[in-house]
Every structure is written in C-alpha cells, then in structure tokens.
C-alpha cells in the first residue's frame, strides 16, 4: 500500500489535488492512504517551495500547481 501525502495549507488547489489523487487511485484500483499535511513546519521538512506538493512513500514527486492527471497515475503506479 502506498503512503501518499498531499502538502498544502488548504487552498483550493490543494483540495483539488487531493481529490485528483484519490480519484486516480480508485480508477487504478490501488489501495492508498492519502494524508493531508497542513502544518508548515512539516511541509518545510520535505523542502518544497510551492504548494500543493505530493509526497509518495516519503519521496517528493510534485510541487507547485495542479499536477496533470496522467502524471498522477504514473506516480501512483511507479
């Protein structure tokens, strides 16, 4: 099971990103645990400079702006 974290203070795009990750996981039939990180200190530890960020199994795969759907699928399947 993949451990996915969505990093963002709760702005619109962060929520949209979380929804995208969840929808993509459902489509692919993958089991994932999606966690939302809204604490700035926690975010800073991952070194991202722009929100929303996506961390999968401890690795930053995306930061800044809405990701593309095909990319989200690729990251989840990797």
């Amino acid at each position, binding site marked *: 099971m993949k451990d996915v974290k969505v990093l963002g203070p709760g702005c619109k795009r962060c929520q949209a990103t979380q929804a995208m990750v969840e929808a993509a996981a459902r489509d692919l039939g993958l089991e994932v645990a999606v966690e939302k990180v809204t604490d*700035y*200190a926690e*975010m800073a530890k991952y*070194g*991202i*400079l722009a*929100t929303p960020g996506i961390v999968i199994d401890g690795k930053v795969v995306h930061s800044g702006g809405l990701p593309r759907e095909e990319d989200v699928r690729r990251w989840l399947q990797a």
Partner: protein
Amino acid sequence: MNVPVTSLRQVGKSQAAWFAGVAVALVAWFAIYGQLPALARWLVARMPIEQGSPLMTSIEFFFYDTPKVLMLLTLVVFAMGVVRSFFSPERTRALLAGKREGLGNIAAAHLGVVTPFCSCSAVPLFVGFVSAGVPLGVTFSFLIAAPMINEVALGLLFALVGWKVALTYLVFGLSVAIVAGWVIGRLHLEGWLEPWVREVRAGALEPEADHCTWIDRFEAGWDAVKEIVGKVWIWLIAGIGAGAFIHGYVPATLLSGIMGGNAWWSVPAAVVVGIPLYSNAAGIIPVVEALLSKGAALGTVLAFMMSVIALSLPEMIILRKVLSLKLIAVFIAVVALGILGVGYLFNALYS
C-alpha cells in the same frame, strides 16, 4: 526501434500545429485590435445619447476599453505563462543560495519578477529559501518584488499608458525591492523570525531537470490565460467602470488639484489609502490610465498603484506564520518608505 521515431515525429507534428495556431491567433488578434476604436464609436453612435455629453464620454471609454484590455490581458498573460515555464522556485533558490547581499538582492528582485509564485505559497517559499542559506534580506528582496512588479500590470501599463511609464514602474519597483531587502538584511533581524522557522532544516530538493518541450510551454501559457483571465475579468470590468466614470465626470482641475505634483501630501495620502485597498493588479490599471489622462501626477499614481498591489493585508496575515509582528511592521515600513521615495522622485522628475 520504430516506436521512439514515430512518437518523436508526432511531437514534431503537434509542435508545428501549436506554432501555426499561435501565429494565426496573433494575426487575428492584431486585425481585431485595430478595429476596436471604430467599433466603440459605432456602438455609441447607435445609442440615444447626446453627442459630447459626459455620459457619452464614459460609455465610449467603457466600450472601447473593455475589449481592448481583455485582449491585451490575454496576450500578456499567455506570453508571461510561456516565459515563466523557463523558471521555477527550486531553480531560483539554487541560484540564490549562498549569494552575498548586494548582488544577491539584485538577482533576487529580478528573479522575483519572472518566477511563478502564488501568495498561498509564500510561507513554504520563505522557509525554503531561508533554510537553504539564502540570506534573509535577499529573501525579502524576492518576496517584495514578486507581488510588486506584477507582470500583468507591467504588460497592461506598457500597452495602455506607454513604454516610459511601464519602464519607470519596472525600474523603480526593482529598486524598492533591492533597497528594502538590503536594509532589512543590514538590520540583522534573523532573531525576529518565528522560532520554528530558525530550527527547520529543510530537506534539499534537487531542482528538477528541465524536460519541457515547446508544447508544454505553450500549454503552460494557455493554462495561465484560462486561470488568470478567468479570475480577474470581473475586477477588470469593475476597474474599467471606475475609469470610465473618472473619464466622463471627474473634472480635470479637481484631480490635478488633489493628485497633482504641487500637493506635497498627495503621495503619502496615496500610499496610506492604498494599503488596505486590495485589488487585483489588472483591475487597478484602467483606473491608473484614467487618473493620468486627467492630469494626476505620475509619481502619485504610481505610488498609489504599488501600495495597492505590494502591501496587502491577506499576504501579511499569511506571512504572520513565519514572521513576528515586529518584523512584519519593519517590512511594511521599509516598503512604504520606498514607495514614498519613488512617488516624490517621480513627481520631481516629470513635473
């Protein structure tokens, strides 16, 4: 072995399609743009309004300016979207880390103009910069320049008011960001950061390799158009409405009395009025255009505009998460002083 070749060919093909599409769109853009004044006059002439009345002047300004500004905005935002695809906050940080003050401030202010940045990312960006060893003052130069020299405002000023004013805005915006950041750096206020910010050791994220194709860049431009134009059009129309009112009804003598170069108090008044006002940069430009045409002094108008754009309450509230109140007060004071200086200098230069 065939697969990569065909996929490369496809990329080449759709890239050519994008280039052709952009070229056609540009030609159509200029053709339509040239016809706008005639169109506005034609529309107004069809209305039952007295020729030459203030109402007529207002309505004609509105009919002419609305499509004009929307078209300009689309063009500017698309171009900036493409330019910004060459920059990312990660790369900017890599460029600035370990830079000394002085040169670092200058570089940071320039990068602040072109690096994609949204105010909800202000905190992660701030923490990321400071913890990667970008000096506090240099970080501030970036944070001041990013909202103050708004690329949309710059493009619209260039098109509506002229290149001289646009260039002045750019040069003085950069100067304020550089000097204000440098002053904050000299004051050595690191101790006024919120404690957790000093303790955080950010993981170093490698700047991503640049694998953007031209298709990606054009798409980034188009995404920016959809997002920004979709968001600001209502501000723009409100701004044009205000501009149209000024244009038709406010007598020039009134404005040049209040906002002219002779009234020494007009610059600080413009800055103070501008701080709580929070408008989108796009909305303020039609107002600037109308004020200038009525004889308001350039320095006063620019001071008002920068104060509205650069010092905004929502951003201060976000930054409170990392800065102590004292540091926020210093930030506001230094930037406001910078804007004041620009206002006076300009009124002196251009009167």
